[in-house]
């Protein structure tokens, strides 16, 4: 049995008065790519933000290896080795590409040599970022900004990388490229939690997946299981099989 990286038990989170997560339990093992699927409003992004300590948690537990994350703030959680590439990318538009990448290194304590190693790795995976390293973040195209956001997350040397809708708003060719990169990142030994509307593409690279609906987990299984069953179509099209 693989080593557990993240174990969430009966997690309940709320946004204001709305309960966004109603008792979520899931596990991510070291080295896996795990997908979170589900329609809009299912609570996928909330789950990621909960892991990062950005949402009010009512009850339940989030264990990262042996550390309880519930009650910790994001500035305490990020340095432990958890990074989020948020939906809509959120790169810093008025600083250069290189500086954006540097920001990723701010909150992880490690030798300076590791920074260089990671930077070389990012530039190797995204040669385009190297070409544009002196440009301002805001001048990049949507696809390049996504790569910058992913690159910045890699710079923080995460053990667990969470990606929220990395393909959103991108052209099909660029999407394929993004998924290739996710696979590459995983091969570097980084565990990945992926939220994706593009369920088919996500499942193809995932070891396992969880399907969420209105704040709960409906089904879980391997990527293969999902691709072969009709549970996806039924949930995305609204009707849930009893």
């Amino acid at each position, binding site marked *: 049995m693989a080593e557990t990286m993240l174990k969430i038990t009966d997690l309940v989170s709320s946004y204001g008065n709305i309960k966004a997560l109603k008792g979520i339990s899931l596990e991510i093992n070291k080295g896996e790519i795990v997908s979170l699927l589900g329609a809009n409003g299912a609570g996928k992004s909330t789950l990621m933000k909960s892991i*990062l300590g*950005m949402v009010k948690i009512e009850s339940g537990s989030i264990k990262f290896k042996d550390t309880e994350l519930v009650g910790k*703030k*994001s*500035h305490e*959680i*990020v*340095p432990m080795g958890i990074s*989020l590439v*948020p939906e809509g990318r*959120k*790169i*810093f538009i*008025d600083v250069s590409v290189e*500086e954006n990448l540097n*920001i*990723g290194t*701010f*909150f992880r304590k490690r030798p300076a040599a590791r920074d260089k190693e990671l930077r070389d790795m990012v530039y190797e995976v995204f040669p385009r970022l190297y070409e544009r390293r002196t440009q301002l973040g805001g001048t990049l195209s949507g696809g390049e900004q996504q790569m910058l956001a992913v690159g*910045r997350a890699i710079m*923080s040397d995460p053990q667990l990388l969470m990606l929220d809708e990395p393909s959103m708003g991108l052209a099909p060719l660029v999407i394929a490229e993004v998924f290739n990169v996710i696979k590459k990142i995983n091969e570097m030994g980084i565990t990945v939690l992926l939220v994706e509307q593009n369920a088919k593409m996500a499942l193809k690279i995932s070891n396992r997946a969880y399907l969420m609906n209105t704040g709960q987990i409906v089904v879980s299984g391997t990527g293969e299981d999902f691709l072969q069953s009709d549970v996806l179509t039924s949930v995305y099209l609204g009707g849930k099989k009893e």
Partner: protein
Amino acid sequence: MLFQQILNGLTNGSLYALMAVGVTMVYKSLGMLNFAHGDIMMVGTFITLTFVLMGYPLYVGIALGVISAAILGFLLERAILRKVKFTSFVNLLIATVGVSYVLRNAAMVIWGTSPQLFPSMFPETLIEIGNFRITPQSIGVILISLVIITGLHFFFTKVKIGKCMQLANSDPEGAAMMGVNVTHMRFLTFGISAALAAIAGIMIAPMTYARVDMSATIGMKAFAAAILGGIGNLWGALLGGIILGIVEALGSAYISTAYRDAFSFIILFIVLFVKPTGLLNKKIENKL
């Protein structure tokens, strides 16, 4: 005469700039002008004066005045604005205006309303070059302001904690996701802004006397300077402050001293009419 007036303008202008920098920093963090900025300046100035009158050396008084102002800035953010920020924009506006009134009235009770002499940190002797006279005060004020603003620029662009402050102010959620402690950064922004205001007040008071109503006139000019240069922009605040100072000096010398305070706003209206974003800002921000 002209050169002399420009020098006077530069002196006042660099003080407006120092105030405007604080306005602009807090604006970026809060999304709104801090109407208590001038009052924090005034309180810092009077605390310095109080310690000096108690017999402490001027430099001790200055240090204590600046530190008190910074603490006042911290408290303003921590105790009031942080909680109000999540309710509504109007509440936030009223909150800073309210703090402004409380500080001003408290100051009137404690220190009275009459202007008081304030010691200068610079020697009084005039430096004469031909028929041209410079006071050490002018040179000192201009140099200190420029050094502080340049230092801040360095701090915000080269020092990690300064960069984090910038990130936290421009995109709080994104910064938090990167691991920036946004709460601390906001706290620090208010503290630095308030400390700068106190330093400005301490340099203004020897020229204008320490008076409780300095908070209103200087505070408004700081807003005007920050908006003129482009709100949220550090160099804009510097440029705006200096333009205001020079326009004011030339206006009072060649037109009429009666309209001294009006010149700043006339130039502000003209610039906003031509370039609504202020001189150095490119696009209109969504914040008010």
